[in-house]
């Protein structure tokens, strides 16, 4: 490392103080470029040639399920909260494989794993502060895990292997005994009941990002929780939008050590605009700088042809789009019906409906995920599908199909309804607002939860992520449920649990491929595609430096204005 002259040191300190004071002033908009990154010493993963500062205006088609780190379980929510809440471990702000690398977040270093893989020990960095100036404590991590259970978060099953977690999930009292913290040293010790090969990945999830212990154990989407990342949410109006400003304590404290970029713009304003076509127009005219959702299907090709390489980029995802079938109710409790649906659903037709934005598939694991091995158990065959329905002898032929109103998911639902009608069922289509779609279908007491659309984007690059939450019977919960099929096959549950304890290697990958096939033999889903998404920005945004992380999609901290 270079020696720094006293003069430079004083100059740097003065600049940092000036920035911090300006940030503490709060509220006022500033157009002067921020210099916090270079002065603060953090190393942004993507430093472009562009201007620092300014206000980035973006749009979502729907409000995320929650703007609450412990509860949100959608790509919308994670993209939005990525620059706000930092877990103990986190993913590198980079694209492709590099973006799947786990790095220390609020923890000083990666955990030390002892006791045969059952004990994880790490230390919280010193001097960390929330955006309200309060210190970040080791106990905040423990509270974050407990809050997952207190709020019945969809992510809570990731942490049930912690000693005392299951008991806490039932009683909601007394804390989780398997997590020990030392506030003086910042030491955090997590004791698991059994080894868990994915636990580092799970510690890097947003669910366990530390938050102040006085945060109520209910949804805080409308009252933003103090931030630990480079930005803080200053205003949130569910259904309408939210705003960010720089976290004044990031440059001063947190950002000095954490290997995450500080971001380029001073403010980010996100609005909800249901009309995706208007969003595209607004990006073209420069009214918006970035949109979360891809252009609507009817304008996708037009935008791609016009702006590819300059303002538009396609991005592969590790995802699966599928129709789930609730195995606890007729007619989908019958294997033949589920098989029939798989034969009847034509991924090629759905590729057309998604205007080429999905690649057809018929299995749980998507390409790019370790353990992926192409299988196609149900080549499209409507005749065979009808025969299977006839053989099944099911009596209840009334089916409710659920989907959300976001294009083209609504069209996929309409197509699926047509397929089921073709098979002889009486079908009612329910199209819900995407804001609360997964909340409604994730509540097992919602009536007529028969079948419907769902998609799954990886939480982390490990095949267990597609099996444990979505298909393990032990993950079924009354609210925020993600096992929409409510499949609960004991041998398959046990296989998932067994593989989850092992570190991922070639043997495990082969076993995950077999598990994929085993679930497809159960025909619990009718998978139909892997999604290709896109990044579309206004012409004054530097597309080259924009990062697409496999977990968090657009890294908001990587967006910068061109010079």
């Amino acid at each position: 490392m270079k020696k720094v002259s006293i003069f430079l040191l004083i100059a740097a300190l003065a600049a940092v103080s000036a920035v911090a004071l300006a940030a503490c002033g709060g509220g006022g908009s500033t157009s002067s470029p921020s210099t916090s990154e270079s002065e603060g010493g953090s190393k942004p993963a993507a430093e472009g040639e562009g201007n620092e500062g300014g206000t980035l205006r973006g749009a979502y088609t729907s409000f995320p399920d929650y703007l609450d780190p412990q509860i949100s379980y959608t790509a919308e929510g994670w993209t939005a909260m990525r620059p706000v809440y930092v877990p103990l471990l986190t993913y590198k702000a980079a694209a492709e494989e590099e973006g799947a690398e786990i790095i220390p977040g609020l923890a000083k270093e990666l955990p030390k794993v002892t006791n045969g893989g059952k004990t994880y020990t790490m230390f919280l960095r010193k001097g960390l502060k929330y955006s309200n100036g309060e210190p970040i404590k080791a106990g905040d991590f423990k509270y974050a895990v407990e809050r997952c259970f207190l709020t019945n978060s969809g992510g809570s099953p990731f942490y049930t292997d912690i000693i005392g977690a299951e008991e806490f999930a039932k009683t909601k009292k007394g804390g989780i005994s398997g997590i020990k913290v030392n506030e003086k040293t910042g030491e955090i010790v997590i004791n698991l009941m059994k080894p868990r090969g994915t636990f580092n990945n799970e510690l890097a999830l947003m669910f366990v990002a530390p938050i102040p212990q006085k945060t109520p154990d209910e949804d805080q989407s409308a009252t933003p929780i103090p931030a630990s990342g480079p930005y803080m949410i200053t205003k949130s109006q569910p259904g309408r939008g939210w705003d960010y400003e720089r976290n004044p304590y990031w440059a001063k404290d947190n950002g000095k050590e954490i290997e995450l970029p500080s971001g380029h713009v001073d403010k980010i304003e996100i609005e909800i605009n249901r009309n995706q076509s208007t969003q595209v127009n607004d990006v073209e005219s420069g009214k918006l700088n970035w949109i979360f959702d891809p252009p609507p299907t009817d304008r996708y090709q037009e935008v791609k042809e016009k702006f590819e390489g300059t303002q538009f980029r396609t991005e592969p995802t590790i995802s699966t789009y599928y129709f789930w079938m609730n195995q606890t109710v007729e007619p989908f409790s019958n294997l033949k019906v589920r098989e029939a649906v798989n034969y009847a659903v034509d991924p090629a037709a759905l590729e057309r409906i998604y205007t080429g934005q999905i690649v057809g598939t018929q299995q749980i694991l998507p390409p790019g995920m370790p353990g992926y091995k192409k299988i196609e158990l149900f080549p499209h065959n409507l005749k065979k599908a009808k025969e299977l329905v006839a053989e099944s002898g099911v009596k209840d032929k009334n089916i409710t199909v659920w989907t959300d109103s976001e294009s083209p998911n609504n069209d996929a639902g309409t197509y699926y309804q047509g397929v089921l009608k073709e098979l002889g069922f009486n079908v009612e289509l329910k199209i819900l607002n995407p804001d609360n779609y997964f909340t409604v279908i994730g509540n097992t007491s919602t009536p007529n939860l028969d079948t419907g659309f769902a998609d799954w984007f990886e939480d982390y690059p490990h095949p267990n992520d597609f099996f444990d939450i979505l298909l393990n019977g032990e993950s079924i919960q009354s609210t925020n449920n993600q096992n929409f099929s409510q499949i609960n096959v004991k041998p398959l549950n046990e296989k998932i649990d067994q593989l989850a304890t092992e570190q991922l290697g070639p043997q495990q990958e082969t076993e995950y491929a077999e598990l994929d096939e085993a679930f497809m033999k159960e025909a619990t889903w009718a998978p139909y595609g892997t999604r290709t998404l896109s990044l579309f920005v206004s012409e004054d945004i530097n597309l080259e430096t924009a990062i697409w992380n496999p977990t968090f999609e657009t890294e908001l901290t990587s967006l910068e204005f061109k010079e």
Partner: protein
Amino acid sequence: MSPDSEIPGAGGVAPRAIPPNGGPGGTVTGDPELVAEIAGDEGGDGQRGGPWAIAWRRLRRNKFALFALGVFLLIVICCLLAPVWAEHVAHTGPNQTHPLEKLHEGNEVKEVVEPSGKAIGPQFFAAGGKFFLGADGHLGRDEMVRLLYGGRSSLFIGVVAAIITTVLAVVFALLSGYYGGWTDTVISRIMDVIWAFPVVLLSLALGIVLAVGGLEIGPIHVKGNSLWIPTLIIGFVYTPYMARPLRGEILGLREKEFIEAAVAQGAGSARIMFLEILPNLMSTIIVFFTLNIANNMLLEAVLSYLGAGVQPPSSSWGTMISEGFEALYNEPLLTIIPGTAILLTVLSVNVFGDGLRDALDPKSKVRFEARAGTADTEAVGPV
């Protein structure tokens, strides 16, 4: 009752007096002003007949109104023939998807939906009537079939909701206007409460709630995706807009001599309301009813466009506009076609309704305008 009958109603307990507005429900022999007017209307040619006959002659002279009626009837007939077109010409249903289908036109093969998602345009009869107006987007449904079926939904809602509004409004107006006192106060205040909400806002709120959970009243259960949900909502929200002017008219009517005569002869309340007063309201009711159909269709389109009316995949012209709007830039016809259908239908109903009003009651000030949550209603009598 014959439209030409001298004495309206049946039974003839009380000698019916002259209706205050010279409508078809009464005689034309006792009101000098009315007689003079009608005589002037008819050119003093001696072909007076009853008030219905006079109204019909007036309507016949209004060629524009008759043309509008013709257009409306043509649209209704086309929509009623939707299953015939679907089965024998298009060979597909309104919700049947064809994303992978190919059309063979001579040596040319066309994809109904291109890989880019662009749907085929109007083919007229090039493919034997299939995709006459093209496909409706990347699902590849036949636009013409959906238009015809959508028209059935829109017309059903327009007409049935108008019937519901009329029945509710007439009953409430009769009870309120005839009995007065507490009955009037209670009914009028309930109407005021409904009136206080903008029409679109109230129906949107009800539509969203009922579209999810459906409607369950005792043994009656209406599913959330049923056409009856928007029909009932629209029928309900427009009730005050018809009931209040009718009540005003009844307040004037109940003071007339023929009502006093009926009371003096011992006629009961129900008889007076339905056999004495109601026939005198017929011209107003008919005019309201026709204009209401147009308003209902517009409100249905608004609700369906906003997702609170007809639920997909069922089509109505409103849902078709909503779906087409997503493809407005590349396939504007998908919005223009159902929009034009609504325009033609509403315009024809409105023009005919205006003509009917002029024919039935040229002096009437009845206007029925309730757009975007505001109402401007002038009634004959005090409101």
